[in-house]
């Protein structure tokens, strides 16, 4: 089966091409093509995963580009991480496509939407199957384009347009870092292939500083894609895209690619403690930073977006503290519950046509399915015991503790408190209290939308059990199998039991606080901070990051451009016109001399002769 794995990304590509070439004529029937193809991918991925449990890593490459004597390869590889990712991606994609069939009903460019989804799925699957860094980069950017296209799906909306542009450019900044990192790594190790790179790294051909530099550059790529600080600000804006897109791309798959990248390159990071430090600190900081912003946002999708940023920071933190398994584990669980949350939020939005949580409320009884589903997701992400998020978050805390960086550990704990708080704030604002909505007739979403959510909810509940302190650490062991030396050989982080207890307490505390403020309203909403407080405003404005970028980088570039266009006009153009003007001036003088006076002509000839003679006399012949 694994030798046919290349078909997995091909199916969605077929969707893309067919729908694009049909030119929108299929309308809503396009959805079937997309769903069928993705289903095929999913089944195939599942089969591949099954097989991978039994068989070793499969890798096949062909010559792709020869540069002199060097052959760059293309192909695919099925290792544990890849196989897992394939299933996650194809599954979420499948579910989102099912969901979209209901959600996007009536949209004019329905089949275009599915085409884009197909393209994105293709790119994402290609990315996870890449056997080498170059190919990874190849799909890395394509994924970005898919995201760009889908964010800008409502092209006529100014916000969507700006968000798409911003997303592309900010991730591009990260991509360039990644590209440079890849190139430097190539010159250091002579290869793009993972295996060869890791071998070379371990044999120590690259100096320590070099390694750190390369690792950080690669991490910059991850920062861009995964919305880590300081390149995070595109991700909340990306919510301008249709909600299923947010679920697929900006929650479950693409943004996790950064985490996947760091996980893939984990041996490289392990070799440089400084780089690990950077990853961990960036992750930890982003986690709490984004969580704090999420506290005050009023757009349901934005809250979820900042929550995503925060959770991604969590994963980075895990990886940076050598918790390879923890990071990947959380990546997987997060994919399920965050996708669930987005889809549920979409379902809410679908029902009442607004994204502002101030205008929601009291929907629990009206949305009989969506409510519990949303609650499941919220509980999972908050780390409620026995749900998937609980296990994975626990694993991360363990890793951080074990690593010995207590500051980061503390950050993680605070973040999980904040997470529980803002998530339940969201939940309570939407589903409890009185209805503040304009829409009177609230209708539950159709079953085509509910079905995917059910599947995801199921996974959000159970997916944690692949790696628990009690039922065995199946995932960790499997991931580590054969890679112990490369990945540091730590299939499960051991830590004191009080950590788990504390984690539970912290999240319960968060839930309780949210309950008190937003559901029971025992505490006033200004209990924490005043609405017009300085601190609140800073949070509300997302720490003014966008403004800072606008006024520094944006203005600098614009200023430089204007400056250069002055150079273009006055210096480059000036030199040219000076030359032409002086030649023309010469011509003018020359023709002025031509007075029409015949004797002047003779005079000039004679003067010429005289000058010649004088020069000859002074320098030349006789007198020399």
């Amino acid at each position, binding site marked *: 089966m694994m030798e046919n794995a290349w078909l997995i990304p091909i199916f969605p590509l077929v969707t893309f091409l067919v729908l694009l070439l049909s030119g929108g004529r299929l309308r809503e029937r396009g959805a079937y093509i997309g769903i069928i193809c993705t289903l095929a991918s999913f089944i195939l991925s599942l089969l591949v995963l099954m097989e991978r449990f039994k068989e070793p890593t499969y890798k096949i490459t062909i010559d792709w580009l020869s540069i002199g004597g060097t052959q760059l390869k293309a192909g695919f590889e099925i290792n544990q991480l890849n196989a897992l990712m394939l299933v996650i991606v194809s599954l979420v994609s499948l579910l989102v496509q099912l969901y979209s069939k209901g959600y996007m009903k009536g949209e004019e460019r329905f089949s275009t939407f599915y085409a884009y989804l197909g393209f994105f799925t293709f790119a994402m699957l290609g990315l996870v199957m890449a056997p080498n860094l170059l190919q990874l980069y190849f799909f890395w950017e394509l994924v970005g384009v898919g995201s760009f296209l889908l964010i800008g799906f409502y092209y006529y909306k100014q916000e969507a347009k700006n968000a798409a542009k911003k997303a592309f450019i900010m991730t591009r900044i990260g991509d360039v870092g990644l590209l440079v990192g890849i190139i430097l790594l190539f010159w250091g190790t002579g290869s793009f292939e993972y295996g060869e790179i890791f071998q070379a790294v371990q044999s120590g051909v690259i100096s320590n500083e070099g390694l750190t530099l390369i690792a950080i550059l690669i991490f910059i790529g991850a920062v861009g894609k995964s919305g880590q600080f300081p390149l995070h600000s595109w991700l909340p804006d990306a919510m301008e895209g249709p909600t299923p897109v947010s679920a697929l791309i900006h929650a479950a798959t693409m943004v996790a690619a950064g985490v996947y990248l760091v996980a893939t390159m984990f041996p490289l990071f392990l070799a440089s403690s400084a780089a690990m430090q950077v990853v961990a600190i960036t992750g930890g900081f982003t986690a709490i930073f984004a969580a704090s912003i999420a506290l005050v946002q009023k757009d349901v999708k934005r809250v979820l977006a900042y929550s995503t940023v925060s959770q991604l920071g969590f994963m980075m933190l895990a990886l940076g503290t050598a918790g390879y398994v923890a990071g990947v584990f959380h990546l997987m669980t997060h994919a399920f519950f965050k996708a669930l949350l987005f889809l549920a939020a979409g379902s809410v939005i679908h029902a009442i046509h607004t994204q502002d949580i101030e205008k929601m409320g009291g929907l629990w009884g009206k949305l009989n399915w969506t409510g519990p589903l949303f609650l499941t997701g919220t509980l999972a992400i908050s780390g409620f015991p026995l749900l998937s998020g609980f296990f994975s978050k626990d694993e991360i805390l363990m890793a951080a503790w074990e690593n010995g960086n207590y500051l980061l550990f503390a950050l993680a704990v605070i973040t999980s408190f904040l997470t529980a708080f803002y998530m339940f704030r969201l939940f309570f604002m939407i589903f409890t209290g009185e209805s503040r909505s304009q829409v009177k007739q609230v209708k539950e979403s159709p079953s085509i939308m509910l079905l995917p959510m059910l599947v995801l909810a199921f996974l959000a509940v159970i997916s944690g059990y692949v790696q628990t302190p009690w039922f065995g650490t199946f995932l960790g062991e499997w991931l580590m199998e054969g890679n112990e030396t490369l990945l540091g050989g730590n299939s499960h982080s051991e830590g004191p039991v009080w950590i788990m207890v504390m984690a539970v307490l912290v999240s319960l505390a968060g839930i309780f606080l949210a309950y008190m403020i937003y559901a029971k309203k025992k505490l006033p909403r200004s209990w924490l901070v005043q609405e017009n407080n300085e601190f609140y405003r800073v949070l509300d404005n997302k720490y003014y990051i966008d403004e800072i970028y606008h006024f520094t980088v944006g203005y600098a570039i614009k200023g430089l451009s204007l400056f250069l266009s002055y150079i273009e006009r006055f210096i480059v153009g000036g030199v040219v016109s000076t030359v032409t003007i002086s030649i023309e001036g010469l011509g003018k003088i020359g023709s002025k001399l*031509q*007075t*029409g*006076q*015949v*004797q002047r002509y003779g*005079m000039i000839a004679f003067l010429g002769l005289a000058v010649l003679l004088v020069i000859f006399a002074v320098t030349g012949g006789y007198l020399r």
Partner: protein
Amino acid sequence: MTGVPLSAYLVLALVLFCIGLYGALTKRNAVIVLISIELMLNAANINLVAFSKLGVTPSITGQVFSLFTITIAAAEAAVGLAILMSLYRNRKTVNVDEMDIMKH
């Protein structure tokens, strides 16, 4: 042929040439200009004849040359004057400095 050295003839010719040139380049009247040119040509004749007699290797060819030159000078003067006449017919002037309808 005693006494007068070659250099004296040469200086005379040079002076004559310069006078001619001066006249040709400064006089307003076209007739005088033409005459000045004749003067220059004749200066050359003096040179030729002087060299023919007193040069480093005296020979008769110089004198032959000057005969040709005289003839040519005459022809040139004739042509020049003829042209001047036709110009005068049209312009009613013989002033060289007024001939500037074509310039720049």
